[in-house]
């Protein structure tokens, strides 16, 4: 149990005076009083076998206590389920309404107006898109490409120069030309003839289109596709290369610095994004490259399950209001 109020006060006063107020014995007494009984605590976390043993040894009282625990547990989860269900419903409705309120009408001017007031915008936006398990693979790919195109267009409208899309299975990477086509189509739909230029890139793959045309005056978007392979595996790959090089005597392990690894991973795989948007109900990174998310602002709309413009907009607003301290 926690230390009692009186003891806490005494302890804090002691702390303020540089641990000169209390004697060793007094301090020890404070700690002693708050300790659990020796047989309490982690003993209970043992396997079921220990449970049974203890129950039989300590008899009815233990058993009743356990029953109370089970009851309270069921009660707690009952209440919690109710709470979370109502929260989900409430959020669902709220998000529906805001998605109607903040609809972009496929007009770049609207989107531009939405982001105009923000005092800072991410230079590199990243998003995690998910394949749905129970869907047919083909429609799922279509949906993913559609979402990618949609997101890329919003980024182009908001004048964010780089967008990276993480999709675990890597199916998007396989369809780079199709993604390119889809995005260009969306661009034309939004902007008309004078749309920004686009390049689709991916680690270990040639850029698409292979030869960049001259930069148009309407801006340029780099769409970077990554998958699970670019997470831990890329670090493993780098380690293999480094191990190989040092076996050949080209580098010494002492040369391996954080800067070197950072340079390699951000050039070869993905530079550190400023903002990561999740379209899942809760934050789970599902294998997103670990090195790169160090200071990335993670945005996830609680209980949200849909892909939509309002999530994008909220993420940008949230990003604009967040402050960076970098350990200070």
């Amino acid at each position: 149990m926690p230390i009692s109020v009186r003891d806490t006060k005494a302890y804090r006063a002691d702390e303020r005076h540089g641990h000169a107020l209390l004697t060793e014995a007094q301090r020890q007494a404070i700690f002693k009083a708050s300790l659990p009984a020796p047989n309490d605590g982690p003993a209970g976390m043992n396997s079921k076998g220990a449970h049974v043993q203890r129950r039989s040894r300590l008899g009815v009282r233990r058993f009743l206590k356990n029953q109370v625990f089970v009851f309270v547990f069921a009660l707690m989860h009952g209440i919690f389920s109710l709470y979370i269900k109502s929260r989900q419903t409430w959020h669902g409705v709220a998000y529906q309404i805001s998605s109607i309120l903040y609809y972009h009408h496929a007009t770049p001017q609207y989107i531009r107006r939405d982001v105009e007031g923000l005092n800072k915008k991410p230079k590199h936006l990243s998003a995690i898109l998910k394949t749905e398990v129970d869907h047919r693979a083909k429609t799922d790919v279509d949906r993913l490409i559609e979402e990618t195109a949609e997101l890329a267009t919003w980024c182009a409208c908001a004048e964010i120069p780089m967008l990276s899309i993480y999709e675990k299975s890597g199916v998007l990477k396989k369809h780079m030309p199709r993604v390119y086509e889809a995005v260009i189509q969306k661009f034309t739909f939004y902007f008309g003839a004078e749309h920004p230029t686009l390049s689709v890139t991916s680690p270990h793959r040639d850029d698409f289109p292979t030869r960049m045309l001259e930069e148009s005056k309407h801006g340029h978007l780099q769409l970077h596709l990554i998958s699970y392979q670019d997470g831990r595996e890329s670090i493993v790959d780098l380690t293999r290369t480094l191990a190989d090089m040092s076996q050949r005597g080209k580098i010494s392990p002492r040369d391996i610095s954080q800067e070197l690894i950072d340079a390699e991973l951000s050039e070869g795989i993905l530079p550190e994004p400023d903002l990561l948007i999740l379209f899942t109900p809760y934050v789970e990174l599902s294998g997103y490259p670990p090195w790169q998310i160090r200071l990335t602002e993670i945005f996830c709309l609680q209980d949200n399950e849909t892909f939509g413009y309002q999530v994008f907009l909220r993420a940008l607003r949230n990003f604009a209001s967040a402050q960076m301290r970098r350990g200070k």
Partner: protein
Amino acid sequence: MADTVSLLRRLILESPPGEWAVNQLRELLIGALKQGPIPQHVAFEMDGNRRYARSRRMETVEGHHRGFEALAKIMEICYKCGVKVVTVYAFSIENFNRPKYEVEGLMQLAKVKLEQLTTYGDILDRYGACVRILGQRELIRDDVLEVMDKAVARTKHNNKAVLNICFPYTSRAEMTTAIRSTVQEFLSPTPPKNTPFSPSRIRQKILSSQLDGREPLPTIPDEPLDGGEYEDKDSYEDKDPYGDEDVSSSATLPPGSPEPRLRSGSYGSATLPNPDNITVDTIERHIYTANDPPLDIFVRTSGVERLSDFMLWQCHQDTHIFFRKCLWPDFDLKDFIWVLLEWQWRQKQSDRENPSSRSRNSKARSMME
């Protein structure tokens, strides 16, 4: 009005019977939580101590002291629930950029607290918890380091739970260290295997039988050709006296001829391991939390929604990440219980979707139904 209410609340909660009741309630809740699935590894990013201090007009260092008290409470809850490993972010390498007196204060805090842990060592013993310090040791001051080592040694025998204190730590430094030590590991030759069967003898047997046979172009030596080349290169690095001769012989002799392979086989036992054998697990072994179960829950307080260089390698897969609004010194069972409940609820949910996914949930499920 608000004043009287808060006064009344304080009077009730801080009176001995009030305290007793609160403690009983805590015990009850913890005992109840224990009936469900319990995360094995929880990480806390203790953010907001300074804002707490500022909002209460305290010294910054005192905010950190309050933060430590909150940590003690949370640790107690975790260990009572049955969490095996608690990892806390006590000090970042970036924190050295803070004002000097604050860094000084934090160092002093760590020193005093760990000293207290070592003098009244049975605090951690009661929970069977051992302390580990993760991070770049070389950045710690000597006197602090000494106390830390003492604390670690004092609690080493405990094996029920672990408290990982990340001090001074950043995840990128951790990954860099892991990569470096993996490379180092692959630089030392594998120890020769102690078997009665000599590979060179076996090879010789095969070759001689093939040479005796009619086949002029044997198929078996074709396969180890790459390996043979590797060995040549490696032994070139390692054994200079033979190296030159070896390379020249393998360069002059046509591929497929048995001679150089036979020779490289004779000291093949000292070759370096093949870097292609490096896998995620190899690096994992060099990560600070190598022996700990996978991270289940990551909690960051004070509303900042960033990982800030903490547990990147550990939490980017299926860890559930919780960002909480409250400041760390205020973080207590009343906040943590929501995290645990939500986690248990999600476990149940994912269990329902794919029933055979996790074995450890089965017990909980049977209890919930």
